[in-house]
Structures are given as C-alpha cells and as structure tokens.
C-alpha cells in the first residue's frame, strides 16, 4: 500500500520534471520571437526609399543594393530572352541544387533502389503461385486498359532514359562517348523528351481518371499493410482488385508524383507561354527532376513486382488474363467478386490463338 503511494509520487515527480523541461524548451524558442510582434516589418526589412534632399543616401549604393536584390530596371532592348533584371539570384541557387544534391543524392538514390531490389530478389526469390497454376484464367485487364498501360509505360521508360541522360550524361556519358557524340545524342534526347512528354501526360491523366475508382483506400488495405503485404510473415492478406501496395503506387506515384512532374514539365516545355521567368523555370526544373527521380525509383519497385518478383502477375497486363490460383492468392476479394458477377474461368487451352499462355503448357498441370 505504502510502496504504491511512493511509486505514484515518484512518477508524478518525473512527469512534472519532464513537462517543465518541455515548457522551458518551448518558451526558449517562443519568447524571443515576440520581438516580431512589436517590431514594424518595414523597420526590420528597411524603409521604403524615396529620394529626398533631407535624407539623401548615396544613390550608387542604393542602386547596387536594388540590383543585388534582383530588382528590375528599364531596358529598351527587346527579345524573348531579354530581361530588365540586372542580377537574378535564383541562378546560383539553382546551380547549387542541380550540380549538388540533385545529381549526387539523386544518382545514389537510384543506384541504392536497384541494389536493394537485387538483394531482395537474391534473398527471397520469386513469389510463386503457392497452389500452382490451375490452368483456368479470368480477365484482369481489358484491351484498352492494357493499351493505356503499355503506352504510358513505354513512354515513361523513354522519358526516364532521355531525362536521366540530360541530368547525368555529362558525368556518365561524356567520358564514354565524347563531347560531340553525346551532344548529338542529347539533342535528339531533348526533343524526344520534349515532344513525348505531353503525350505521356495524356496517358497518365487517363490512368488517373479510369483507375481511381479501383484505388479508393479502404479497411482491407490497413490489414494488408499490417501484414506487410504478404512479403513478411508469408501469410497472404486479403485484397480487392488493387492491393494496398498498388494503391500506394497509384496515389503516391501516378497521381501525386505524376501530376507534379506533368505540371512542372509543361511549364518547362512551353516557354512560349511567356509567364515563365527564370525563377519559375529554375524552380520547375528542380521540382521536375527531383519528383521524376523519386518516381523512377518507385517505378523500379513497380516493374520488379510486376515482372520478376511475382509469378503470374505480368500476364494480367500482357494477355489480360490471370490464373485463378494467382487471383485467389493475391486478390482474393476481387476474385470472389468476379465469380459472383458470373464470369466463368476459361481454361488456358481454350484461349484463342495469338493469346498464347505466358508459360509453356507443360507447367500448367502441377
């Protein structure tokens, strides 16, 4: 009884100490900032300067100060690239980002993702269809959906290769192919990138419109994540047409990164719109490249899971039909839905010519 009272007292003391410490830290940061409430912003950042005799400062130093802060003047020269700004500060900042973290961290990030995926594959190997192939197939992706997927996927890959060439080519390709060789390739790469980008954007927008309904997050996904998507523990969590991981790829990759890359890409691709100052262009290029690098890293994971990583997954996107046992294992709720809707699984042998099974017929029996 007594010891319990002592324990409560001790814990209360601990709590009081922690809270006081917390309060001290917060106040130490908050109190000095009160100055900003009192101080006039104009006083902090300098008064509005108008020329007058009684408080004449040196116009020379004023002018250079204005120039240094990137203020514009008046110029009679005209042309699409002529600006009235004497010094644009964004240039050096952008240069630091582009030649610094964008290339170093960005490059190592992509290499690290590839290494991690290789290691993962080396240690866990392919996720097999546990029951073996049933030899019966159901439709997973319709023809127009597959066309949309592969159109977008191929243009993504071309855009990724050309885009990465423009960012890393100077460090990676020029030492190999030389200056003029790389310049010739880069010229083509830039135009392919610039002309294919808008077409790719249309694909991404269609994907977002057509597939958003399959990707609405629900309670099943929570359970899916709790069980690590079946990767850890070996037990297969339930999933509808799209599982939790695919939804992350959809909302994080296609939707968020996709829209960021598309909007910044259009700003960069159409300088003729005219609103793009150097500041906007530098920001767009940074955002475009960083978002694209993250997206490409994400894409490595998506491509691995869809091809090498999972037995029986790729054929859903190539011939449009998947094995029923694959469906039961990876998308059990969707499979139940499909059957409930009255679709009858079709045996591999009855599939029309030209839609040959992805695997030799001999394997389908076990």
């Amino acid at each position, binding site marked *: 009884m007594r010891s319990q009272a002592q324990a409560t007292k001790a814990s209360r003391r601990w709590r009081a100490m922690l809270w006081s410490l917390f309060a001290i830290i917060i106040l130490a940061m908050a109190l000095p900032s009160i100055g900003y409430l009192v101080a006039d912003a104009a006083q902090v950042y300098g*008064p509005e300067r108008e020329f007058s005799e009684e408080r004449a400062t040196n116009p020379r130093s004023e002018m250079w100060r204005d120039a240094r802060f990137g203020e514009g003047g*008046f110029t009679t020269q005209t042309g699409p690239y*002529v600006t009235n700004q004497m010094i644009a500060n964004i*240039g050096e900042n*952008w240069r630091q980002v582009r030649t610094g973290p964008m290339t170093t961290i960005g490059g190592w990030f992509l290499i690290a993702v590839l290494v991690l995926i290789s290691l993962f594959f080396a240690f866990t190997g392919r996720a097999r269809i546990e029951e073996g192939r049933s030899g019966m197939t159901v439709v997973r992706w319709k023809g127009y959906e597959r066309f949309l997927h592969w159109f977008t996927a191929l243009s993504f890959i071309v855009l990724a290769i050309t885009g990465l060439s423009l960012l890393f080519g100077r460090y990676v390709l020029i030492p190999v192919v030389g200056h003029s060789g790389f310049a010739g390739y880069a010229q083509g790469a830039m135009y392919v990138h610039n002309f294919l980008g808008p077409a790719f954007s249309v694909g991404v927008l269609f994907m977002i419109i057509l597939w958003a309904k399959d990707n609405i997050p629900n309670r099943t996904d929570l359970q899916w994540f709790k069980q690590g998507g079946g990767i850890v523990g070996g037990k297969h969590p339930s999933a509808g047409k799209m599982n939790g991981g695919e939804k992350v790829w959809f909302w994080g990759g296609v939707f968020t990164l996709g829209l960021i890359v598309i909007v910044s890409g259009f700003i960069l691709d159409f300088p003729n719109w005219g609103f793009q100052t150097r500041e906007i262009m530098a920001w767009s290029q940074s955002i475009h490249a960083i978002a694209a690098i993250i997206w490409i890293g994400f894409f490595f994971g998506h491509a691995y899971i869809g091809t090498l990583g999972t037995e029986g997954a790729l054929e859903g996107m190539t011939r449009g039909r998947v094995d029923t046992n694959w469906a039961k294992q990876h998308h059990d709720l969707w499979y139940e839905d499909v059957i409930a809707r009255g679709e009858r699984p079709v045996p591999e042998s009855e599939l029309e010519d030209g839609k040959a099974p992805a695997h030799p017929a001999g394997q389908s029996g076990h």
Partner: protein
Amino acid sequence: MARMKFLCDAERCIECQACVTACKNEHEVPWGVNRRRVIVMNDGKPGEKAVSVACMHCTDAPCAAVCPVDCFYTTADGIVLHDKDLCIGCGYCFYACPFGAPQYPQQSAFGVRGKMDKCTFCAGGPEEVHSSAELTKYGTNRVEEGKLPLCAEMCSTKALLAGDGDIVADIYRKRIITRGGRPQTWGWEAAYGEGV
C-alpha cells in the same frame, strides 16, 4: 596571364545605347538576340543609374556548371566561350546566369530555342580564327587582332571598360579616388540604412 573583365561605371554611363548598337552591328546579331543591353535602375527618378550588362565572363561560370553537354570553355585570357556545335538549346544557361547573358533565336513550344548566343568578348569561338564559320556563328574575332571588345572601345564616356582585370581595376580605383565622395557615401548610415 591576363584575366579579361568588363566593368561598367554607373556614374559615367549616360544610357546612349551605343554599346548595344555597336555589338549588334559588329557581330550581325540576329533580331531578338541581345548580347548586350543597358538597364536603367529607378528610371525617370532623381538618382537614376544606367548600367550596360553582358556576359561577365565569370571565373566560376554558372552557365558552364549547369550545361548538360558541357559546351562551355574558358580561354587562357579568362574569356568564357561556348561551342554552338555542341549546344542543344535547352535553356539551362539562361536560367543559371545571374545577368541573363545567354540568348536564343527562338522561344517556341516544346522548348525549341535554337543555338544559344552570347557575348564572346569579341573573341570568336572554337572555329578556325577568322574563318567564315567563326564569323557566322560567333561574330568577329577582335581579340585575335589585338583589339578589345568594340562596345568598350567606342564607349563615348568610357563608362564601359574592358580588358585585363587588373588594369581595369586600377583605372576604376583612380577614378574613385579622384571623384572623392559625398559625406553620405560612407559611414554608418550608408552601410546599414537610417535608424538602425
């Protein structure tokens, strides 16, 4: 070795635009491309100042740092030049340059710009000296003839100076000393502003 620099004395520049015209004419610079331009700060107000701006031939040039095809090079005289045969017209040097020196003949959809053009310090380019290729791509090569850039050579008030950075700095320093200054040009207020 000399390190070539431009310097524009804002106290002397009278905004006559002769440097701009001289440059355009000497190098047959196409319409819409401006290797040099005059910017007037506080235009029309007392204390307005004009400065002639072109490529400043930076020692650590941002344009060269961001160029995807690495087409820039610095000559032994410290002049920053570029190779138009390598240039892909991506526009990056224009975003990186603090002075807006790189210019392009076009600004069209899908980022079509043509080859970048900028001030060469009247030193031509990587082509054979005085060849017609050098003339059409980069303009005349006055440095090879032992002359300085035309813009500075013909500046009527000698506001725009060009040449060996050390000599240019000496001339400017002498001017500043001779010119003296008003009491407002030095001291606490000039440095930090009023009421600080």
